[in-house]
């Protein structure tokens, strides 16, 4: 029996289809292992080799990787939620209730989305804290720190825009309070420094553009939905690619000074 499977496997590996998909065998040689990484579109962002300390959880906390994992969880559960959710004021709240009460696995998907979102904000901050503690923002990694700060604000903005979508009282008033801060934007807010002098009114300032009106209403729901589901994840994904790529280009995961005798 096993002989048949082995022979079928050998036969399969000779076919053109198989060889067009898998370029390398499982041969455990340094060269083959490196080729497996660099020839894979998903894995090639990884370095072929890493230093020993880079696998030390005590040093990295794994927070960047956990954040990325949560982002993937949020993307998948978010897409699933989009099958039932309509971003219109008449439907949004009912669709959320429908998801929670009548859709099979709906509560699981929504709760996973919610908890992963909360967790991602926390892990992003812990990641930033670890990078600060280990001095990993120092040259040559300054640029990647800046990308990371933008990713932090994108994470917070994703969290904020998602908060409106249930369209309940908590969501509407939380976003009312949150967006009222935009009134005080310097130059671009109608209650901010030099705003009124530049002709800013309640119906033409930066808050108005964000809300699509003078108050949180149906246009705001649609705007936040598009920002939450399309614009912010897209920008975030692009910056994440840059962020991961720059880790390698800046010399891999930072670590103790190996030239020093202590290590």
């Amino acid at each position, binding site marked *: 029996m096993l002989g048949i499977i082995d022979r079928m496997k050998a036969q399969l590996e000779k076919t053109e289809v198989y060889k067009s998909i898998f370029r390398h065998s499982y041969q455990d040689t340094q060269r083959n292992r490196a080729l497996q990484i660099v020839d894979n579109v998903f894995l090639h962002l990884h370095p072929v080799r890493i230093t020993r300390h880079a696998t030390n959880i005590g040093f990295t906390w794994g927070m960047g990787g956990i954040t990325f994992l949560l982002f993937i969880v949020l993307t998948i559960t978010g897409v699933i939620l989009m099958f039932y959710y309509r971003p219109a004021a008449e439907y949004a709240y009912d669709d959320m209730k429908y998801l929670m009460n009548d859709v099979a696995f709906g509560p699981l998907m929504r709760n996973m989305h919610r908890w992963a979102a909360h967790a991602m904000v926390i892990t992003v901050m812990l990641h930033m804290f670890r990078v600060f503690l280990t001095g990993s923002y120092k040259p040559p990694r300054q640029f990647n720190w800046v990308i990371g700060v933008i990713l932090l604000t994108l994470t917070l903005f994703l969290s904020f825009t998602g908060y409106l979508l249930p369209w309940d009282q908590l969501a509407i008033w939380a976003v009312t309070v949150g967006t009222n801060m935009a009134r005080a934007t310097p130059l671009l807010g109608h209650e901010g420094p030099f705003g009124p002098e530049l002709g800013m009114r309640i119906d033409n300032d930066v808050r108005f553009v964000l809300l699509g009106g003078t108050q949180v209403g149906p*246009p705001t729901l649609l705007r936040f939905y598009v920002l939450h589901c399309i614009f912010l994840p897209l920008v975030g994904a692009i910056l994440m690619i840059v962020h991961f790529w720059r880790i390698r280009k800046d010399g891999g995961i930072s670590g103790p000074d190996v030239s020093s005798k202590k290590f």
Partner: protein
Amino acid sequence: MSRKNFLNVAGWFGFAGFLVTATLGAIRLMVPRVLYEPPSAFKAGYPEDYIVGEVNEKYKDEYRVWIVRDPDGFYALSAICTHLGCTPRWLAAENKFKCPCHGSGYHRDGINFEGPTPRPLERLKITLADDGQILVDRNIKFLYEKQEWSKPDAFLKYG
């Protein structure tokens, strides 16, 4: 400047011009021309419809405005908490406005006395329309801290 140089510069200017125009157009697109919101000015019925001493909540749901009838006239209070913009509630039994979000409280004249809010409620322009109805314009605000409550349109004198 050689012809090659000129074309190079012109090409880049054209490209930059396209990008700037497209960006400005995209920003303009995000500013709506039509709002499906209640109009900023509205008529609030005839003065004799009001009972002296009442805080009228009839126009609160749609316009976020209280119309207060004092013995000598009317004033319109904006039902937007001056702390962070929630809608306070009128508690008739306690004779005060109370915000459910963070607990800011205001006397019936709009002066703040408790909670985190830094300033009184805003009053709105209140006049009599040609047909004798009360006319409130939410776009014109009168701020206590700027001594604007004594301005003519902040209070509608009525016997």
